[in-house]
C-alpha cells in the first residue's frame, strides 16, 4: 500500500508533519500527496472508530443479506446504489456465496431496524429476499481489538 495511506489507515489524525517525520519527507510534500489523493477520491473520508459498548445510548447494528434479481443492463448496481442512498445504511457490498448483497444498517433499536428493512429494503424492486442478522457484540473492528486486555509487561531496562 502507499506508505502515507498505510499510516493514515491506522491513524486518521496523523498530521502531515508527523507523517513527514516518519517517512523522512518534507511536510509540504506529504501535504501535497494527501491533497492529491483526496482530490482523486482515493481518500474518501476520515473516520473515528467508536467502541459503542462503552456508551450508554443504545446503537444497534445489523448485517442484512439480500438476494437480488440481476437486471439486464445494470446488473446489481442499480439496486445496490438505491439501497446505499438510505442514511440508515452504513455499507453496501456485493458478495460471493449464497447471497448477493451484504448491507450494514445502523439504528436506535432492533425494532427500528426491523421496520426499516420491512418498509424500505424488502419492498424494493429486484430485492427477492432479506435475512437480518443483528450484531450482538463486536470483538474487533478496523484492526482494533475492542475487548479489554491487560498489556503484557516488559522490564524497564534490559541489555
Amino acid at each position: 500500500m502507499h506508505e502515507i495511506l498505510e499510516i493514515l489507515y491506522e491513524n486518521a489524525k496523523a498530521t502531515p508533519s508527523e507523517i513527514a517525520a516518519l517517512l523522512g519527507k518534507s511536510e509540504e510534500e506529504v501535504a501535497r500527496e494527501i491533497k492529491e489523493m483526496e482530490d482523486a477520491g482515493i481518500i474518501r473520508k476520515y473516520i473515528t472508530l467508536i467502541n459503542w459498548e462503552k456508551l450508554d445510548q443504545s446503537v444497534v447494528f445489523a448485517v442484512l443479506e439480500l438476494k437480488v434479481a440481476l437486471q439486464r443492463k445494470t446488473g446489481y448496481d442499480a439496486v445496490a446504489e438505491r439501497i446505499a442512498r438510505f442514511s440508515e445504511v452504513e455499507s453496501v457490498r456485493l458478495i460471493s456465496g449464497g447471497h448477493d448483497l451484504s448491507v450494514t444498517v445502523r439504528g436506535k433499536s432492533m425494532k427500528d431496524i426491523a421496520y426499516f428493512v420491512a418498509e424500505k429494503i424488502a419492498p424494493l424492486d429486484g430485492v427477492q429476499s432479506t435475512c437480518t442478522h443483528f450484531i450482538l457484540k463486536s470483538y474487533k473492528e478496523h484492526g482494533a481489538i475492542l475487548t479489554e486486555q491487560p498489556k503484557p509487561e516488559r522490564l524497564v531496562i534490559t541489555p
Partner: protein
Amino acid sequence: MKQQTKKQRLKNVLPWNAKDHINQSVRDMPPSGIRKFFDLVSEMKGAISLGVGEPDFVTPWHVREACIYSLELGNTHYTSNKGMLELREAICQEVSRDMGIDFDCNEEILITTGVSEAVDLAFRATLNPGEEAVVPEPCYVAYTPDIILAGGVPKTVPTRLENEFRVQAEDVARRVTEKTRSLLLSYPNNPTGAIMTRSDLEDLADVVVENDLIVISDEVYAELTYSKSHISFAQLEGMKERTLILNGLSKSHAMTGWRIGYAMGDPALVGAMTKIHQYTMLCAPTMAQVAALEAMQSGKDEMLHMRHEYDLRRRLFVSGLNRIGLDCFEPKGAFYAFPSVQRFGLSSEEFAERLLYEQKVAVVPGNVFGESGEGFLRCSYATSREELIEALDRMEIFIKSL
C-alpha cells in the same frame, strides 16, 4: 575418645561464610552497569523508558497459537540435543536462500537456548585457559564475562564515531597476539546501531586469515537493517569455514522470552559446542522450538511488518534527536540510536541520571557497553511512536535547561 577428637577438630574450623565458596572469576566479576539503572528506573513512576533491548511487539499470534496447539497435543518431551530436525532444516533453507551459504542441517547447526547460550558455548568450545578473544566495543554486555567464564582473556577494541562504529581492521590487528584465538563481531550492533560494509569485512578477513582466527559473529539483529541488507563475515569468499554464525528469533520475530537461538558453522566447531550443550542444556525448550518453527515457516510477513514499523520510528526518532540538539549519526540496523552528549560537558552516566530524575526519560549510558561508549547514550526506539514523541519533547526541555 572419638567424640573429643571431633570436638578438637571442629574447634579450629573457620566459621561458615558462603562467600568463601564462590568461584574466583565469578566473585571478581563486576555487576552489569545496566543493573544500577534498572533499579533507578524501576522506582520511578511515569518514566518513559528508551532503555529496553527487546521488541515492544508481542510474538505474532499465529506463532503463539501454534505453540498452544502443540502443547494440547502433548508435545512436552525432549528433542534431539541438536534441536528438532524440521527447525534445523527450516533455518538452513532460509540461510541458504537469503545469504547464499549452504549449511548441512545435521552437522553444521545447533539450536540453543537463546543466542546467549550460543555465545557462551562458542567461547567455551574454542578457548583454552589464558587464550584471548578480541571484542570490539561498545557492545552487548555479555561477551567479556562469557570469555572470562570460559577461562579466556578478553581483548577489547574501541570503535569510533568517525567510522560510524564499524570496527577497523588495523585496530583489531593491533590487539592480536600469538595467544589470540577468535574475533567477535556483533553487527548490526547493540548499542550503536552500526552495520558493517563488505569492504570493512574484507579488510578484517586479511587479519583473520593471517592470524588463523575464528570469527564468532553474533547476528541476532541481521534481519533488522534499513536501506541496506546485512552482510555476514561468512559470506566472504573462503570465510564460511572460519565463521561461527550465531543468530536467533528474538529480535526479528519478537520472540525474546522464548529463548531460541542457533549456531552455524564448521562441523568440528558446532560439534564441540553440541558436546557442551548436551551436558549443560540437553536441548532448547521443546515448546519454544515448535513456535520457532512456525515463525520460520510462515512468519515472514509479520517480520517485515515489524521491521517497517521500526524503520518509521527510526526516521522519526533520529531526526528528532538531531533537531533537539542531540547529535546522532544514522543507525542502519538493530533498533538503537546512539547520540553523543559530549558537547554538554557531562558524562554519559551524569546525563542519563539527570535526564531520568529531571524529565523522567530512561536511556542507558553508553559506557555500560564499554569505555568507547563513554560520551554517548543508547536509546531504543522499540517503543511506540507516541512515547518516542513524548520522550523527545521531554529531552528537549532537559537540554534547554543545561
